[in-house]
C-alpha cells in the first residue's frame, strides 16, 4: 500500500490533495494538489487556487501522505476480472424482454 503520488518528506510544506463539490447534489471530486503548512491554510489555498471562478460550494483537503492507495503493480490480482461475470449486469437477463417496467 502506498500514499498519494508526489509526497516528499524533503519539502518544507507538505502536499495536500484537494476535492471540490462543484454544486449541491454532487459529490466532492479530486481536482489537484497544493502545498500548505497546516489544514487551515490548506483550505484557504485550495479556495484561492481551485475556485477562482465559482467552481465549487465546498472544499476538502487531505494530507497526501494520509491517503492509502492500492498498488498499481498488483492491478491484475487486486481487481477481480469481470470476465464471465456478466450476470452482474441487467443486460444479462434477456428472457423478460417485452415485459414492461422490468
Amino acid at each position, binding site marked *: 500500500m502506498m500514499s498519494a*503520488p*508526489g509526497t516528499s518528506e*524533503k519539502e*518544507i510544506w507538505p*502536499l495536500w490533495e484537494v476535492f471540490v463539490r462543484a454544486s449541491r447534489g454532487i459529490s466532492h471530486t479530486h481536482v489537484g494538489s497544493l502545498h500548505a*503548512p497546516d489544514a487551515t491554510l490548506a483550505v484557504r489555498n485550495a479556495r484561492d487556487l481551485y475556485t477562482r471562478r465559482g467552481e465549487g460550494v465546498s472544499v476538502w483537503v487531505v494530507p497526501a501522505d494520509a491517503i492509502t492507495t492500492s498498488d498499481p503493480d498488483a492491478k491484475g490480482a487486486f481487481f477481480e476480472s469481470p470476465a464471465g461475470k456478466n450476470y452482474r449486469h441487467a443486460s444479462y437477463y434477456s428472457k423478460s424482454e417485452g415485459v414492461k417496467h422490468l
Partner: protein
Amino acid sequence: MTTPAEPYALPAEASVEVSAEEHQFNELIAADSRIEPRDWMPEAYRKTLVRQISQHANSEIIGMQPEANWITRAPSLKRKAILMAKVQDEAGHGLYLYSAAQTLGTSRDEMTDALIAGKARYSSIFNYPSPTWADMGAIGWLVDGAAICNQVPLCRASYGPYGRAMVRICKEESFHQRQGFEILLELMNGTPAQREMAQDAVNRWYWPALQMFGPPDNDSPNSAQSMAWNIKRFSNDELRQRFVGMCVPQAEVLGVTLPDPDLRYNEETKQYDMGEIDWTEFHEVLAGRGPANARRLQRRREAHEEGAWVREAAVAYARKQAVAATAVA
C-alpha cells in the same frame, strides 16, 4: 526547446527484449490511452515530462513579472482588477503544473531551486521588457494567443496529470487573450499617439511570439520522440503556421500591421508564407542574453529568499499547534 538530443531513441523493432511492463506502456500509448503517476514508464519519458512540465511551470511564474509591472499604473480601476486577476491566474497555472510534475517524483522545492539557480529554463518570451501599456494588450493577444495554440493539443498529452492541468489552464487562458485584444482595439480606436503605441507593441512582440513555438522542425531534436509518445500532437512549424493563420484576420479587425513584409497568402498551400525568423536572437535569449533575463531571475530569487522566513514561521506555528493538540488529547 534547445536541450541536446536525448540519448534515447525508439527501441529498434524486435531487436530488444521488451519487458512485460514496457509492453504494457507501449500498448497504452498505441491505444492513445493515458499514463498515470504510478504506472511503469521509460526513464526517458519521465525525464522529458519533468523537463517540459517544469519549464512550463517556470514560464507561468516568471510570466507574472512583465504584467505585474503595470498593475500599479493600469489606466483605470477596472483594468487594474483585470490585470490582478490575470497575474493571479498565471500563479495558479504555475502551481497546477508544479503539482503535475511533482507526481513524477521531483519536488516543487527542487524545481524552484533549479530555477533560481539559473539551471532550469522558461519561455524566452518573458525576457522582453514591457515598457508601455500597449504591451499588456500585445502580451494578451499575441503571447497568450501563441500559448493557447501550443496548449490546446497538450490537453490530450499522454501523461494524465499534465493533460488535466492543461484542461484547467486552457479554460482560464481564453479570457487572457480576449482582454489583450480589447486593450489593443481600444487603443486603435483612440488618438494617433495611442494607435502608434499599439502598433509599436505589436511590432516588438510579433516575432518573439512566433519563436515561442520553438525551433523549426528540422532543428528540433526532441520533437519526434515527444510525438511518438503522444506528449506532443503537432510539430512546432505546424502550430506556428496555424497561429499565423489566426493572427492575420484578427490584425485586420484591429487595424494593426503585422511586421513581416514577406507575409502573404499562398493560394496553392492555402496557408500564409512568412519571412525568416531570427533564430540567432532566439538562441541568444535562451542562453541568458536577452534584454531582461538577469532582471527576471533576480526578481524571482529575491521573492523566494525574502519569503523564506514566512514559510519557516508557518511551519513552526503548525508544529507548535500540533504538539499542543496532542498534549490536550
